[in-house]
């Protein structure tokens, strides 16, 4: 078989909170004990994955003024978990989602540089901007940022962080440090740092020498035009939801096109949709399992609550197995709080209603159909072939796998699919370098600047 032109990048999402995690499955264990994180991370490293990914939520979701109690909730703070995982893994990248609205650049730059040092160059930061006054109630600043301002703060935040990381010298000098770290500056000559901008004014000296990757890898998750532009200008990786082949190709082409504006080459930004997967010994078995998993994820109660989140009104009188309500959503309602919103409720409701009418679906069936993300469902051979096809067709550079079970959700994939991807020449058979930048084939910041 011919060697594939593009290699697939793979990352593992820890199935923690929300309803992708099927907690009712007897194989489902703690979402908080360190042993769960250790199991999934070791599995991902055994599978030679690029990185391990943790999401963030800073306030428990509410429904109708009460804490939402149907989904898995309760998670540890990401960077602390990732530092601990650095002790039980050797090569796996370690990515934390951290919001720019409720943090300050100096502190976060220092924490990511610490993770990069302690892990030997495996740190990544998924920069997110969502969250509102509801989440802000847990923080000193409160929820003061308009939607429009979130990305301007995020962009300034990342620029300041990079300035801090660079303030100890920008040169990537392989093996230049006394401890032989790539990217270090010999002698570590600190330079004072000063920044005055719209959101931040700070000055002083960054307390750490350059970390192994120079700049920890920056990931962006967000989909608006501003989000895509922010990613094109700043990110190394995009975590997207555009999973289907056509949607993926359109997104891929759009984002890669934007890079040129910032003097960046297409391969400097990796596009990695979040996907789920279900394996079976036969195609039919996999399909059956997939249906059962979706039914567990979307119980009758979950289906109604999901619908209420869009309609913004109490729908408890409706039958989850009956048709969608014919009343209109209230676009200004605050029934559900703390969930990341995707699009305007009226438009979403219209789309769902059309879907339901076209296929004759009940409320629960509609929710199952409309909220599913891209899934690879089939035998290991079929899944390997499909993944390789997506990447070869420029619908993605790789995938962030979102298993539905904690912590064993990737065992089968690593044991059964990874070897097949390797046989096709579509996936690495060994890590080629020590750092996450090496795994992703991303330039070191110093190297890029020197080439210019």
């Amino acid at each position, binding site marked *: 078989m011919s060697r594939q032109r593009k290699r697939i990048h793979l990352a593992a999402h820890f199935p923690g909170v929300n309803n992708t995690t099927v*907690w009712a499955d007897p194989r489902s264990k703690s979402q908080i004990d360190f042993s769960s994180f250790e199991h999934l991370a070791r599995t991902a490293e055994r599978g030679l994955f690029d990185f391990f990914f943790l999401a963030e*939520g800073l*306030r428990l979701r509410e429904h109708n003024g009460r804490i939402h109690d149907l989904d898995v909730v309760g998670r*540890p703070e990401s960077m*602390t978990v990732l*530092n601990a995982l650095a002790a039980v893994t050797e090569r796996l990248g370690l990515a934390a989602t951290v919001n720019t609205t409720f943090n300050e650049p100096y502190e976060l730059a220092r924490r990511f540089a610490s993770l990069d040092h302690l892990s030997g160059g495996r740190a990544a930061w998924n920069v997110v901007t969502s969250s509102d006054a509801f989440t802000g*109630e847990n923080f000193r600043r409160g929820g003061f940022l308009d939607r429009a301002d979130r990305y301007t703060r995020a962009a300034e935040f990342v620029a300041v962080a990079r300035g801090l990381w660079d303030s100890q010298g920008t040169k990537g000098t392989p093996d230049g440090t006394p401890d032989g770290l790539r990217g270090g500056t010999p002698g570590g000559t600190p330079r004072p740092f000063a920044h005055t901008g719209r959101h931040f004014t700070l000055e002083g*000296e960054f307390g750490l020498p350059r970390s192994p990757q120079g700049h920890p890898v920056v990931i962006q998750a967000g989909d608006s035009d501003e989000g895509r532009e922010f990613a094109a200008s700043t990110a190394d990786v995009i975590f997207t939801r555009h999973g289907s082949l056509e949607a993926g190709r359109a997104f891929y082409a759009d984002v890669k096109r934007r890079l040129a504006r910032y003097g960046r080459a297409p391969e400097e930004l990796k596009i990695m949709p979040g996907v789920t997967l279900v394996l079976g010994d036969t195609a039919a078995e996999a399909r059956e399992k997939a249906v059962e998993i979706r039914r567990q994820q979307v119980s009758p109660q979950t289906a109604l609550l999901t619908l209420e989140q869009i309609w913004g009104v109490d729908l408890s009188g409706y039958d989850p197995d009956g048709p969608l309500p014919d009343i209109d959503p209230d676009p200004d309602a605050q029934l559900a709080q703390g969930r990341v919103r995707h699009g305007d409720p009226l438009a979403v409701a219209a789309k769902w209603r059309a879907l339901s009418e076209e296929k004759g679906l009940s409320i629960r069936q509609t929710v199952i159909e409309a909220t599913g993300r891209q899934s690879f469902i089939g035998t290991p051979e079929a899944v390997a072939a499909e993944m390789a096809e997506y990447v070869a067709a420029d619908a993605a550079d790789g995938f962030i796998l979102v298993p539905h079970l904690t912590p064993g959700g990737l065992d089968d994939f690593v044991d059964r699919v990874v070897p097949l991807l390797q046989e096709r020449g579509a996936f690495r058979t060994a890590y080629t370098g020590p750092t996450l930048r090496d795994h992703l084939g991303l330039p070191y910041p110093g190297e890029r600047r020197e080439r210019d």
Partner: protein
Amino acid sequence: MAVPTGTLHLAAAIDGDGQYQAPYYVDLARLAERGTLDFVTLDDTFGPPGPGRGRLDALAVLSRVAPATGRIGLVPTVTTTHTEPFHVSSAVATLDWVSRGRAGWRVEVSSTEAEARLVGRRPAAPAGELWAEAGEVADVAARLWDSWEDDAEIRDTATGRFIDRDKLHYVDFESPRFTVRGPAIVPRPPQGHPVVAVAATDPVTWETAARHADVVYVHATSPEEAGRLRDQLRSRAVGYGREAGALTVLAAVAVDLADGEGAAGRSPADAPLVRPPATAGGPPLYRGGPVDLAELITGWHTADAVDGFHITPVAPRHDLERFVNGSVALLQHRGLFRTFYPGATLRDHLGLSRPANRYALEREAAR
């Protein structure tokens, strides 16, 4: 020899300005664990401690150390001035999760203009103000640690409910400095409350220490002075409705262990423990051999002046090794110090009970 009244507690700093590699810290923590010390500490400051002397984030380092050790307590310094109380509470609770109940937190403030400028959020403030705020941060952290009752997670398949939301609580903390709504994102940590430490080495810290700390360090050059400080702190703690024994008082000592085993015939009272010049700050310095240090510890402990010692090795690798292999071994031989960890958590080592959940107590009381 008189029989000391309580268990002797020993802790050591594993500071390493200019050390950026994990194995350095792992090796020191393992060495301390071999000596069955109660806990190790790692200092931190928001800004660089000096030209060319950077520090990693202390909580990050001890998280990295956690899976590489088994029993020893892990107490990073975390500052409260330029940080978010909600994040601090989550990070410390998470250290407790990843270490399976071995986390502590030394509360510290950032008082310099240089640190304030690194953040740019607000100017430097007087120490009294910052310590009052630190106390509030400790308070809200404890409330957040209680905001999930221990049995809040029910996984009830019959009703489809993952949690019993009546066992999750809004903390609704309000002070002029900040507000926090709650509940925590992190479920109640294994120890209930990770151990809170305060260096009560300046009177400006005393209220916060007496009110919120489980462990305090004091600076004293004689057992009499140490005993007086302990009495003062304990009576303040009692004033806040706490039990005197809730406060574990450790004498902080910097140790420079010379190569000899200690001058023969010198009594513990003569052991050289000198206060540093006021400008330098820091704990009193012990300079001598490990045997004499064991004598000094025995003497103070037997006099019931302190509950134990927090050692800062001047040359970390060398002095900690001599402390563990020399002083600790001798204290163990004399039956003054444990030879194994009878419990699993830092609270176990310190003889502190696991705090009851305040909301569960309220619920019981309301019944």
